[in-house]
């Protein structure tokens, strides 16, 4: 069974003269357990698609099936539950809560998912930030913040990790390290990863590359031999 099946998915913003068609009649199947990269230029609709897949937004029309279940028919409470238990998010601008320390940022996620503090500590250790656990986001570098963000996403052991331009705000070396962490989690925990990027190079690490332009899927290709993050250069 596919992880996701998208049927005629569309998303519009605004109305009248200011109408923006962010997604146009997208049909797509994403298999389970894969590292998928959604590639496209700015404004191609990749982030919008990711938001739909994570129940972060409602489509204007069309359906999304997650493992056969129509998640577009979910009410608010079911969508919240889906985000809480099934999805882990990593954002471009980290989006850590500035009033909570690194460990607390992870813990708020595990607490909501009904997991223990140990799960939070384990996730933080996995991204190599145990020693910075007590620091607040303002005291961490961009790379460290993104690692905390990844720890927060994986601590609740989600089925899918949705990463929206996770290296977008980072320098090259730090970006590579982040990709390594994400890849490692994918490999070790078997988590399906959907990563949005505009970088052709980063797409090389994926099992499947979905190319988008102007809200439409223009191609879905498989990578026979994905490269390791450390081999990527951009």
């Amino acid at each position: 069974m596919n992880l996701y099946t998208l049927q005629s998915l569309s998303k519009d913003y605004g109305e009248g003269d200011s109408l923006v068609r962010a997604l146009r009649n997208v049909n797509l199947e994403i298999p389970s357990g894969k590292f998928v990269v959604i590639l496209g230029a700015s404004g191609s609709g990749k982030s919008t698609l990711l938001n739909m897949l994570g129940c972060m937004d409602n489509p204007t029309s069309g359906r999304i099936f997650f493992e056969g279940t129509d998640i577009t028919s979910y009410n608010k409470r079911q969508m919240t539950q889906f985000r809480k238990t099934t999805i882990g998010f990593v954002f471009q601008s980290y989006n850590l809560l500035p009033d909570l320390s690194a460990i607390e940022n992870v813990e708020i996620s595990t607490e909501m998912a009904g997991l223990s503090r140990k799960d939070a500590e384990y996730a933080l250790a996995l991204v190599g930030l145990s020693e910075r656990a007590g620091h607040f986001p303002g005291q961490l570098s961009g790379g460290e913040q993104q690692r905390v963000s990844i720890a927060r996403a994986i601590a609740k052991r989600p089925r899918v990790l949705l990463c929206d331009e996770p290296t977008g705000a980072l320098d090259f070396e730090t970006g590579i390290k982040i990709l390594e962490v994400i890849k490692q989690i994918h490999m070790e925990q078997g988590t399906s990863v959907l990563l949005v990027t505009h970088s052709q190079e980063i797409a090389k690490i994926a099992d499947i590359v979905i190319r988008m332009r102007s809200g439409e899927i223009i191609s879905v290709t498989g990578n026979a031999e994905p490269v390791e993050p450390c081999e990527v250069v951009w």
Partner: protein
Amino acid sequence: MERMTFRLMFRKMRHHLPQLIGIGLLVMVGTAFFVTLYTIYLSYDRRANELFINQCYADVTFYGSFDEYDVAAVESSEGITLARGRIVHDFRNGDIILRAVSLTDEINIPYIHEGTLPSASNECALLKKHAQAHGTGVGDTIVLQGKSLRVTAIVASPEYVYMVQNERAMMARPDRFGVVFVTNDFFNGTYNEIAALGEITKDEAEIIGESIGAARTVTQDNQVNKVLFREDLKQIRTFSYIFPLVFAFLIVMVIYVMIKRTLALERRQIGVCKALGMTEGRLLLLYIAQTAVVALLGAVFGCVAAALLCDTIIGFFSVMFEVPGLAYEFYPVLCGCVILAFMALSAVSVLIGARKVLSPMPAELMRPRMPSGGKQILLEKAAFLWKRLSFNTRYALKSALRNKGRFFAVLLGMCGSCALLTFALGFFNSAEYTQTAYFDGFANYDVMMEISPMPMEMAHPVEEKFDVINRALMIPVKIDGDEYPLLVVEENFDMQRIDTSRIRDGVLIPRHYARKWNVEAGDTLRINDADVTVTAVFEQNFGLSIYTGYDYVKEIIRDFVPVYNVIFARGADISELKDLSLRYSFSYSTLPDDKNSFASLMESLNTLIWFMLACAVILGLTVLYAVGLMNLSSREYEYMFMGVMGYSLKNIMNAHIKETLIQLVIAIPFGFALGYGILNVVKTAFSSDNFVLSAAIYNESYAYAGIAVILMSALVAVVSGFYVNRLNIVEGLKVINE
């Protein structure tokens, strides 16, 4: 709430600490005001009723001339369980009136503060307030009608919670009026009162009174002491609500504005929390809990402040009434309800402000907010005028109207503070105005003497002692089942300023009665069993009476015999009155005495006025500062940018001051109107069948209230100046994303 959410809540509170402190302060002052006055209301109600029950306050008192057979007849009447005859007599000693009351077993028992009740004819018990006023104690001697009496006890009485001689007299000064309880053998003669206990209605009591030939029958509920008690309770309760209501309204406004601003700033964080799986309910709880915690702390501190304040406020109320054991009492239910009410109020305010902001999907919350569409303000449409304004003034005008929530919050803060200041000062003015209106405007006599009824053709010996006299007849009449005084006067009556040309064709009634009975001049009023015409309605503040002439009274009372029992007089040495009253056996009251009594009563209200003024200033400063700070922080970037563009602090502050001026110009007149409105509500609560407070606010009070609000705004503007001056342009421009 989970541990992390709880921790997040407290950490977030740091970001708007000044606003939260402001809200806490408003809750604290509102709570302190309400709990203080409501505790006094509850304690007074409880303690006074305990006194009435434990000391067997007579349910009905008959006035007249009685013997033991009459007492027995009353006691055997249906509904009466106990009756006792007694003698009550007023003795004047210089300026002091001492009322001697013979003790009765098991009815109207004095409450002993100190000592034992008298057991011999040369002993007496003295009412505490009079004893205190003269420094008299147990073992001292007082002189009554030439007899020396040893004081054996200092007491309180259920009949004299208020120091009032009778229905028509002002509340007496304790140094001028006292009650002395003596044994029966102090007096010789027949009883002039019968006090009885029992469960009977007013009508049943009157039937008993008629059967024993009583001149008057007064049930406990109609006794002036009990009437004043009920009215004071009502007034204290009304007062307790006014300030907290204004405070509550502003608390809602400040929380609403604060939460809107906070949520706008934390929009992205809210989106993140929702993306992580936090429900809307939990998010709402996160913000509700912040203000609820502050409301809880504010209300608890308010209750503590009330505990500290209560006895002071009771102290100045005790000028008016005396009830044993009246002191601060802790009412857990009251405190609990107030705390919960303020917490609920804060929660509702957050709910109103936050509900819509929290509902969008996480993706929408995490996107930068669309800038709100610019809109022309009304003045811009008047292009001719708008073009002539300086850029700075145009900026100030547009800024003022950019965030309507904050604009109105500041406006309401100014308006509320101005209203409460106007009300507090106006209340003081009203008391002064009422005093002047009656004593210098309405009353035109020096002394009023109550004598035994005399035929009109007979002159009372005291009349020749005065330059000008007017005779009148005071009789009780019934309207809607209640008794009211009817003053029958002659056409040349000029001792009170009423239009005597109208007394021939009907009755003149005070405006308070007109409102109460819903009649106007020209309407018909049923008095006793007769329909009479109301010929005029007039303002009267004290000793409210219905007035008519000796001719027209025959329409009301059949078989009317023209007599008089009141003499108004002026133009003589009133120091002679003492001897005259003893010689001709009449009671009297002088206008200067009444005026002094009222003035001293009003002086006791000063503490309450200052308390109210302080609350109004706290309210104004807190709201202006809390909302002003939000305004500043939301425009921080704008000010920094203006700094980059070369705007000086002076230019920025000019715009800020212009904006404040716009708000002041709108808020102050509304504050005056609101203050006057509150005063009118209080005026109604303070008015009774014995006393009517006239609402009046002097021009200087309006000026003081306006100036105070302007000064508060100026103070906040100065603080704002420091804030703007401290802004770091370079650092500020780096963090423009929020």
